[in-house]
């Protein structure tokens, strides 16, 4: 690869107001799908451009065309219907999918968007999927007799999508499993499902995990069937690094979150640099990527760009200090 410390992002970016308005108008039948898609493409190009200008190494399409990370897939796959609004926390709500029949995929879900984003840049664009365990855990189930039956069906469907992304040319496939860290007793089942997804994929595989008790599931994470763990680390005080330290045979790549995505405050350069240095105490630069804690869709564009900028500046300075060169 390069000199290490590659910069990337977890997935979502804030949607410009014109997208939020257009999504509303589309839902009310006031504009057609084509008009909405054109605007989503415009916003995607905008975010690709921002990432290029910031010099990020591995970029994302920003998910301008997605609402919720689970609902998006449920809406584009068969077997699901959408529920009414349920609360996530505070005053935030989302529509939770309901499995009402066998889950399946009639067509590619994300591949055209990946192709479009990759056509705009020479930087590698990650193929972005939501993992089977998270889709199952974050859906209601009115069809399958057991969670395991639901999960294994779901894993086969996500695998099909991953295969199509790789065929289209994606070199990085990220399969997000933020639900993973909360139920240690189901980690084995979750890993079995994830292995179905990554089976035979000719790509660098990543999974994003956040906001849970990592200590309780760490041995499972250290042996998860994936190349890289993308972790929320800032919000949890970099405790994850201690877990790695205490597990000498750990050999995964890690993408480490160094800015909090739920705070309006932009972290100082020194704070981010100190986070990166903490990561380098336990991982070599070639095994360590740097990114925000989580998707950034809840921030404003100004906050988001400022946070990405401080990551970019901090990585550049740390590389200089370590004599890693600028790649």
């Amino acid at each position, binding site marked *: 690869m390069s000199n290490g410390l590659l910069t990337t992002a977890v997935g979502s970016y804030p949607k410009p107001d014109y997208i939020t308005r257009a999504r509303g108008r589309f839902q009310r039948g006031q504009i057609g799908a084509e008009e909405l898609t054109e605007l989503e493409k415009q916003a995607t190009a905008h975010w690709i451009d921002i990432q290029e200008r910031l010099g990020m190494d591995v970029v994302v399409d920003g998910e301008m065309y997605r609402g919720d990370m689970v609902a998006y897939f449920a809406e584009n796959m068969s077997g699901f219907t959408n529920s009414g609004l349920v609360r996530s926390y505070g*005053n935030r709500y989302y529509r939770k999918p309901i499995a009402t029949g066998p889950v399946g995929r009639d067509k590619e879900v994300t591949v055209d968007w990946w192709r479009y984003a990759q056509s705009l840049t020479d930087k590698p664009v990650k193929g972005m999927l939501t993992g089977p365990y998270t889709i199952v855990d974050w859906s209601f189930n009115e069809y399958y007799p057991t969670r395991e039956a639901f999960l294994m069906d779901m894993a086969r469907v996500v695998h099909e999508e991953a295969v199509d992304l790789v065929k289209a040319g994606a070199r990085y496939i990220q399969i997000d499993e933020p639900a993973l860290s909360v139920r240690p007793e189901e980690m084995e089942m979750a890993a079995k499902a994830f292995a179905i997804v990554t089976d035979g994929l000719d790509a660098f595989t990543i999974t994003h995990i956040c906001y849970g008790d990592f200590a309780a599931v760490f041995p499972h994470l250290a042996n998860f069937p994936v190349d890289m763990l993308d972790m929320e680390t800032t919000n949890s005080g970099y405790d994850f690094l201690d877990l790695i330290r205490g597990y000498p045979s750990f050999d995964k790549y890690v993408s480490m979150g160094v800015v909090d995505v739920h705070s309006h405050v932009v972290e100082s350069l020194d704070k981010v640099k100190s986070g990166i240095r903490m990561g380098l105490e336990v991982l070599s630069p070639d095994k360590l990527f740097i990114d925000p804690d989580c998707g950034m869709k809840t921030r404003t564009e100004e906050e988001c760009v400022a946070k990405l900028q401080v990551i970019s500046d901090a990585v550049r300075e740390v590389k200089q200090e370590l004599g890693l060169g600028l790649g």
Partner: protein
Amino acid sequence: MITTMVGNYPKISPDAKAPSLRTAINRFDEGRISLDDLKRVEDEVTQEVIQDQVDAGLDLVTDGQIRWDDGQTYFARGITGYTINGLIRYFDTNTYYRHPIPEQKLQSNGGISVKDFEFAAANSQRPVKAVITGPYTLARLSQLGCYDDLRSLVMDLAGILNREARALQAAGATVIQLDEPSILKHKDDADLFAEAIECVVDGITATKALCTYFGDASGIHRRLFGLPVDLVGLDFVMGPANFDLVADLPEDKMLGCGIVDARNTRAETAEEIAETIRRLAATVPMDRLHVNPSCGLDFLPRPNARAKLVRLVEGAKLAQGSAS
């Protein structure tokens, strides 16, 4: 047999004519309406969700916890010494709360939930159950902060929440429920837990309910059944092993039966619910049962939550009819 809720109820309604708490909170955050305006909407929504419960036919209602962001911060914000930190996931649910941290030794600052209880009681045609997040769970879902160990945090909270329970009792609460899901995840702490519960209920003559959910009580159920409370609530949906434990319930205790899945939209039929009640009543007579959803209903969209309550009451009637 009493039909009731565990605690919370969905805050927003798909009915366009209903007062919207979601909109009101957004407007308040943007500085477009005053705190009084926001409180007025909270009052209206509380009245609405109490009416939903009364209309469904519940015997014992709650205020729906419309004003609570979650069970932790609602109390922590009312206790001197706590600050509120970043988001953390609530058990194995896809919901989050902000992590309370004791920055200094915690102290009671007077009644936390008393005004809200009084409002609900004044606006309900049915008795209102007061709900307190128990000291063990509140401590477990906080950080330790300035405390050296879990025990000292739990016992400080127990003392503070005893004052809360006494204040609720003085305000007229006839049923006070302590929510303690965390003990099911840390069964080794049963001794500390017992000490904390004894402290909270000291001096309380109202009906005392201890409510657990998100698992089964195997291994500690005899300890729970032996505590100085009048009712022990168990979750028979996420903890089917609880069915095997109820035979050990002493005859002077009531059983809280979480038998409708509060975390899935699939609507149980009245017959399914009646069958579960009959199964439990074979061991614990119906007049010692409270029947309710498995946990708070805020995990569901409002229409599904309402349907669950309607079915629960239908199922209870069916079970009672067939028994008489």
